[in-house]
């Protein structure tokens, strides 16, 4: 990791567009950043990464964009809203999520092929779905999902309500879901690691603060907050 940034003397508002899955950790980061840099104010816009990419491409006044997937970051680099190379600041791996008490008696990834179990996966179009696909390909398992959800939270809702017996989601999400969901690690998870890229925007209204926030996320303090939430270091 990089060393903790020195006091930069930045001030003013910094607007951060961040993937919704970063809500909890980035809020904490934002508070710490404000304390470390008096005179700054971090404003977050949490939404789906793709919606954020759309907004940035339509000229939204953002300073920093933290995406949950390289694909959404690519949408903004394609339009030259960001020309610098984005940095990967966190990684996430998949876990098997089962409802409290594991009613489906799930032991491993192989159970995902059982037709009589209710299985939820993310849709291929979203990052966790793409990762799931890679995992199943590596394990040579044909999964029999009952639903292909639009995001991890939707999958988790179904797990926590016991509507499905098993699902593949990110480790961070299992952690956030609390007691109602149990997570199980599996070996094939290493085949699909999801990178979270971050970048400052070229037209950032507050370029200095943007740089400072970006540095703070990549600093050790930032890493600690992210790892508390279950993210792996890049």
């Amino acid at each position: 990791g990089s060393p903790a940034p020195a006091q930069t003397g930045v001030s003013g508002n910094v607007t951060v567009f961040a993937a919704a899955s970063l809500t909890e950790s980035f809020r904490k980061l934002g508070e710490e950043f404000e304390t470390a840099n008096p005179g700054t104010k971090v404003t977050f816009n949490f939404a789906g990464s793709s919606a954020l990419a759309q907004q940035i491409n339509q000229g939204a006044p953002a300073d920093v964009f933290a995406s949950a997937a390289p694909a959404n970051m690519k949408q903004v680099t394609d339009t030259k809203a960001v020309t610098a190379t984005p940095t990967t600041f966190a990684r996430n791996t998949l876990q098997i999520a089962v409802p409290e008490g594991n009613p489906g008696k799930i032991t491993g990834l192989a159970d995902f092929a059982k037709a009589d179990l209710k299985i939820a996966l993310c849709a291929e179009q979203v990052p966790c779905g793409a990762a799931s696909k890679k995992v199943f390909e590596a394990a040579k398992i044909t999964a029999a999902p009952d639903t292909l959800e639009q995001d991890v939270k939707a999958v988790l809702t179904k797990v926590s309500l016991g509507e499905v017996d098993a699902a593949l989601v990110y480790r961070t999400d299992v952690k956030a879901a609390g007691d109602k969901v149990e997570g199980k690690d599996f070996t094939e998870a290493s085949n699909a690691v999801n990178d979270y890229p971050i970048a400052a925007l070229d037209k950032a209204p507050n370029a200095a603060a943007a740089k400072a926030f970006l540095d703070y996320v990549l600093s050790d303090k930032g890493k600690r907050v992210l790892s508390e939430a279950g993210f792996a270091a890049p």
Partner: protein
Amino acid sequence: MRSRLPVVLVLPAIAGLAFLLVPLAGLLIKAPWATLPSQLFSAEVGQALRLSLICASLATVVCLVLGVPLAWLLARSDLPGRGVLRALVTVPLVLPPVVGGVALLLVLGRRGIVGQHLDQWFGISLPFTTAGVVLAEAFVAMPFLVISVEGALRAADPRYEEAAATLGASRWLTFRRVTLPSVMPGVIAGTVLCWARALGEFGATITFAGNFPGRTTTMPLAVYLALETDPDAAIVLSIVLLLVSVAVLAGLRDKWISGPS
């Protein structure tokens, strides 16, 4: 024979029209038209479109069957606490659809209050099925129908119902043959709202019924997923949905309207 339309009405009307239509025009202008044909004739899009139309129509039927009597009860009976009931009926409108889906899961899901019995006793499981899509859409769309029809009922002259009663018609016959035809414009307006809302339904559907191609993937779900990877394709899909709905609405409404009047 009537005078010119008054500016004070026509200007806001045109502004309103522009407000609704210019964004649509924006979509049409920016859409990558080149990809439209390939999208339009892809099997998946066809499937999603068919499923959307079928589910929205079935949901509308469910809403009509349950919602019109409900509207009548709210408008004509002298139940105590009608005001609160009426407000409660409006509530699913306010509920974020995703929460609506959660509420449906709490009741009709595998471990839901009612759903667990459905599962145990009849082996019926609604989530992740096409029936689930219909239910989710109906839940979200029904208030539109109920409120439109109730408004129309309260504007209708109740003396026609008295006339029917003196002719020996029961309340049910009166409802069917006198009340309902006389509030047809309101019912049609409500049906259109209801169908359109059901057709565009996303949050409750994906939460309650999930997303499985051919079974529960309706157009809005397909659009949402396309937005994740290929926003242009999403716009094209939306335009397809729009064009189909405009065609259906323009076609059906004229037929319905010329019918009763």
